[in-house]
Every structure is written in C-alpha cells, then in structure tokens.
C-alpha cells in the first residue's frame, strides 16, 4: 500500500481539520521522537522537522525554522534603495531573480518610473531562464530524494549550462543583481542568442531522457504515487499556489491571470494536472520546465535587439522614493511571490514584507501532509512541495 495521508483517506472534510494531534506519551516506548534537520540531506535548507514516529509511520510533524539568523526585511530598512540589491537576491538562493524583479518593480511603482521596452523583454528572458534553472535543480532534487542519483547529475549539469548563460548575460552565476530599478544593467552579449538556443535544445533533449528514466520508472511511481496528496479543498485555506495547486487542477498562474512584463505577448497556456500527489507535482513541474524552454525561445524570437535597456534615473546616492505603499507580485517556480513595500519619502525603505510561497508550503502544508507518511518518504514529500526555507525566515 502506498503511504496515503491519513487525513485525505478520511474524506474531504478532514482536509480542513486544523485541530492539533493528541499528545503522545513518549515514555511509553511506543513512539520515537526524531529530528530531521537542520543538517540533513533530506531537508531542503535551513530548517528542521520534529517527527514523532509510531514504527515507521509519522504521527506528528512540527516544523522548526530559525537557523538562518539574517532578518532580510529588517536589513533592508537600514540600507539605501540601491544597497538592498545585495540583500534581496539572497532570500531565495536557487532563484534570486524574482526577488530582484519584484523589489525593482515595487520601487519603480512608487517612484513612477517607466522602463524601456527592451528592458521588459530582457527581464522576461531573465526570469524564464531563472525558472528553467530552478526547475532543473528541483527535478534533480526530487529524483535524489527517492535515491536515484543519475538524474540529478544530468539536470544539474544542464543547470550549469544555464548558469553559463547567466554569467554571460549578467556577469554572475547565482546572485545576478541584473534587474535594477529603471531596467536592467546590460544588454545581451554578442552570440548569446545562438548559445542560448543551443542550451535550450540540449536541455530539451535531456528532459526527454529524464522522462524515460525517472517518470516512466516503476520504482519512482511506487514511491511517489499516493504520497502527500493535496486535497483540492486545501488549496485556499492553506494558501497553496503555483505548481502545487496547478497539479491539483487549479488553473492559477499570475503570468496569465494578471500578466506582467512581456507575458501578455507570449503564447502559452496554463498547464494543469489532475494527480494531487508527489508524482503529479513532479509531472507538473516537468511540463512547466518544457513550457519555460518554449517561452525562452519566444523571448529570443520577439525581443527587440536595439534600444535602451535602462530608464533615466536619479543619482542613486541621493535617491529618495516618494512616500507610498504598494504590493507587487509575480509567478515564480513555486507560485505567487509578492513584495509589500512602504516608503516614507526618505532614502530608506520604511517597511518591506516578502511573501514567499514556502511559508505556507513548508510549514502548514508540510505538517499536514507528513502525518501518516512513512519516515522514508519524508524527504521525497518535502522536496515535492518545492520549498526554500530562507523565504520563511525573512
């Protein structure tokens, strides 16, 4: 029997049962308390899971954050607007670009800055390349969590090719700091388009092999089918967004629902699935990876090759943003990513709140789905939710 969640087995009404589990008597010898993390290969970052086991079955899961000790939001209040670019990108290491974009976009909205058309396309290209790199890393992580190490080596080597493109485009592989208020820092280098198309071709071919080896694999199916089923009734109460929601058949994607940048000029449909388990979520992300490759090609086809990529900006050393507040959002690989920003007309931001999808996925959803799982499946389950703990602990 696959490790179906106890709550989902009992019907839809149980999905919205927020009651805490009964405390167990650990001294009875019947239960084991086990910590998974913060240093653990089966954890996705700086957090840990406090698991209560009855045999191999998890009967209680409590998440613990607090291992990052940075406080990004507070750090930003003590830095000028331009200095914050070294901070925001670190909130989500595998895909910092979404933070750069949203921070810039919020500042632009409050300052009333219009960015040039070429910058719009360059930002779109940059975000989609980031999505591709992040998905490639995730596919490797999910496969590795189930003990298949061939696929991670393939996907991570291709992610490196995408990082090569970032290096050419932005001068950096991970923390690009490429999208700045007013546009982007540079245009595309000579020959970039051909090299990008080559990387897309080889990545697409590799994804075909991944599909055969990982997704058409009886053991992968045995491990992931029925694991961590998200009841569609949980979507709104738990704040589930992105591929986790779309895999349940919920057609929500900010790129379509509230288009930003050049997404309204790109041809694509929202991909949805019908399997709400870990396998369904993996399949969803594989299809979205392919969609991302298609969008990158469309960007390369349609983007203007000439023109300014940066609007006229004030002297950043004495830059004051008018008082106001705004909430901007974008669709990152894990769903809705949002920045709420308040300014008071000074050189510093008054308050920034970052809404990362990991907050709900890694805490409330994880604590719910873990109960009833086999202890061996907990790493696969956590990865299947695609979470980055620094987003939780901003």
């Amino acid at each position, binding site marked *: 029997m696959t490790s179906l969640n106890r709550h989902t087995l009992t019907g839809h009404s149980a999905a919205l049962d927020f009651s805490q589990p009964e405390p167990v008597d650990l001294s009875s010898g019947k239960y084991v308390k086990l910590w998974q993390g913060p240093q653990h290969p*089966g954890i996705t970052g700086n957090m840990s899971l406090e698991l209560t086991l009855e045999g*191999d079955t998890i009967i209680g899961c409590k998440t613990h954050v607090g291992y990052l000790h940075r406080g990004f939001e507070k750090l930003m209040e003590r830095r000028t607007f331009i200095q914050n670019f070294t901070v925001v990108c670190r909130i989500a290491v595998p895909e910092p670009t979404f933070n750069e974009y949203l921070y810039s976009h919020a500042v632009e909205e409050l300052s009333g800055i219009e960015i040039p058309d070429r910058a719009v396309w360059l930002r779109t290209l940059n975000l989609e390349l980031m999505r591709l790199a992040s998905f490639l890393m995730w596919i490797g992580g999910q496969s590795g969590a189930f*003990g298949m190490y061939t696929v991670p080596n393939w996907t991570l080597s291709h992610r490196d090719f995408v990082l090569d493109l970032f290096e050419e485009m932005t001068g950096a592989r991970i923390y690009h700091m490429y999208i700045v208020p007013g546009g982007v820092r540079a245009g595309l280098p000579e020959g970039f388009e051909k090299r990008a198309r080559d990387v897309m071709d080889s990545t697409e071919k590799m994804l075909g092999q991944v599909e055969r080896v990982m997704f058409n694999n009886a053991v992968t199916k045995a491990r992931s089918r029925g694991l961590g089923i998200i009841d569609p009734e949980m979507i709104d109460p738990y704040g589930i967004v992105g591929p986790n929601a779309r895999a349940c058949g919920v057609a929500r994607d900010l790129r379509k629902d509230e288009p930003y940048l050049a997404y309204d000029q790109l041809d694509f449909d929202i991909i949805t699935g019908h399997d709400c388990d870990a396998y369904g979520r993996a399949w969803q992300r594989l299809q979205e990876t392919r969609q991302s490759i298609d969008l990158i090609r469309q960007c390369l086809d349609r983007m203007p090759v000439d023109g300014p990529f940066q609007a006229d900006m004030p002297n950043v050393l004495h830059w004051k943003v008018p008082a106001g507040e705004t909430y901007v959002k974008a669709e990152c690989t894990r769903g809705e990513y949002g920045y709420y920003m308040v300014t008071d007309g000074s050189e510093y931001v008054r308050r920034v709140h970052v809404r990362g999808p990991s907050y709900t996925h890694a805490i409330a959803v994880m604590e719910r789905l873990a109960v009833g799982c086999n*202890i061996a499946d907990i790493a696969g389950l956590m990865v299947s939710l695609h979470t980055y703990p620094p987003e939780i602990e901003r």
Partner: protein
Amino acid sequence: MIYQSLGEWFDKIGNFSLTLLIVTVYGLLMGAFIERIIAKVQGRIGIPYKQPFINVLKNIFKRTAISHGIMFYLGPVFRIAGGIGTLAFIPVIFGSETFSNFSTAGDLFLVIYFMFFGQLGMALGAGESGHPYSAIGVARGLSQMTAYEVPFALAVVAIVLQYGTLSINDIVAAQQGGWQHWTMVTNWPATLAAMLAFLGMTGYSPFDIFLAPQEIPIGPPTEFHSAYLGLLQLNRALFGATKLILFMNLFFGGATGWPELMLKTWLIYMVAIVVGVAFPRYRVDQGIRFFFKLPTLIGIMSIIYVQMVLTA
C-alpha cells in the same frame, strides 16, 4: 579436511592470507572501477582508482577520543570477521591448491552462516551507538536481509539438490567442461532467483534504503568513525568481492585462473550496477514485498524444476 602437520597449517594460513590480500585489493579496485562506470553514466569523470585505498588508509590511521561501549567497537570487528570467515571457506580458484582456502565438505552451510554473522554483529554494534538513525537503519537492513535471503536460500537448496553436495568445490567441479554445464544453463530458475537476491545483497538501488542518505542518514554506520569506519570500508570491498566469488562458483562455473575470475565477477557485479543506476530505491516494505513475490516464486520453481526435471 585434516591437515597432517603444523607445517601444513602454516602453509594453509599463508596461502589464505595471500588470497585475502588479493581479494581485498581486487575488491577495492573494483569498487573504484564501478564508481567510475556509474560516474560515466551520470556524465561525471569519477574518482581516481587510488581513492578507495586512500579512504581506508586515512580512516584506519585515525584514532578516537570518545567511547560508545565495547559492543559498539566490536561491531566492525564482527563485520570484517564475517567477511574474512566467508572468504575462508570459499575456493577462489578451482583446482588451485594455493587459492582453495579452507574449503571442505559442507562449506556451503558455513559460508551462508558467515554471511549472516557479520551483518548481525554489525547490527549489535550499531544498536549500541544509541543513535536513532542507526537503529532505524539496522531495522531496515535486517528486514531486507531476511527478505532477500529467502530466494537466495531457495536457490541454494535447489543447487544442493541438483548436485547432491554441500561442498562448493564439488559444485564447481560439476560445472566444468564448458559453459553448457554451468548452473546458469542447467538450472536457470535458481540462477535467476539468486541474481534477484543478489540485487538486495549488493546494497545498490533499488535496495539501498538501509544506507540511504536522504531517507535516514546513513543507517547503521552513522556513528562509526576513524579506524572503525576504515574497517567497515575494508569489509565492504572484501565482502563484496567474496560474494561475487561465491556467486561465480555456485552459478557461473567457477574460475580456473585470476583473469577468468575477474571477468566473471565483474560481469556479475555489472548486473547490480546497471540496475542501480537506472532505478530509485524502494522503501523497505516495498523491497520486502518485492523479494517475497517474484524472486521467492522463482526460487520455489527452481526446486520443483530440480525435482521434476533434473533428478527425475
């Protein structure tokens, strides 16, 4: 076998020591070779051939300042004793006086006992560490071992019935005269059942849950370090090569020289490697269910096949 004099005993021990050295070095080298093959499949270069030797030597010469109790330290000793004991009763090169070890009538029983002995000793040691990951790893490892030993035991029973002997040397002798006499051909169901069990024995995917880094790091050896970890690494090479030699003897006609031994054992090992790089790992309950289904059924079939076809 009764040895006539003390000199004969010393000769035998000397010969076995030589065999032990060769098999251990071969196991370490093959480990590096296999790692390089896996790396090629994964698009990497892989480790240098000397890496397993460096790992073992580095750990062997380290000392520890902490104590987990006597049994914890005896765990790796039992483990390697199991590996050495297994090799001691397996004739490595057929027809060779030097490399026949202490092979004697009924050695097949002894070998199977020693194969269990090391793992049980290790389980006791790991349990003494008090680490919950070790305990969970031990529970998983022993559960899976119990499961894959069933088809293996059935396959062994089948060939014992087929050849009418419990002597590995006699079983190898019965397979001489060409590949058509190998158990692989004459009793293919037993070979198939044993090879499926072999996938579980090697500890590669899909049956490596007891050592899984993601699911529980790192299982039984979690707390082992320094020289004790070195002993475990040494045993992994020795025991791995020894199991390959046993399988070669029981099912693939044995070997009359080292080149033949290396070729055959390498090919047998490749079965586990090919499966290992292409599959994720089963959970322990899934693995147990797997072994109790098809492999066990084939194992039972192999006994019926011997009784109905080969000895009828």
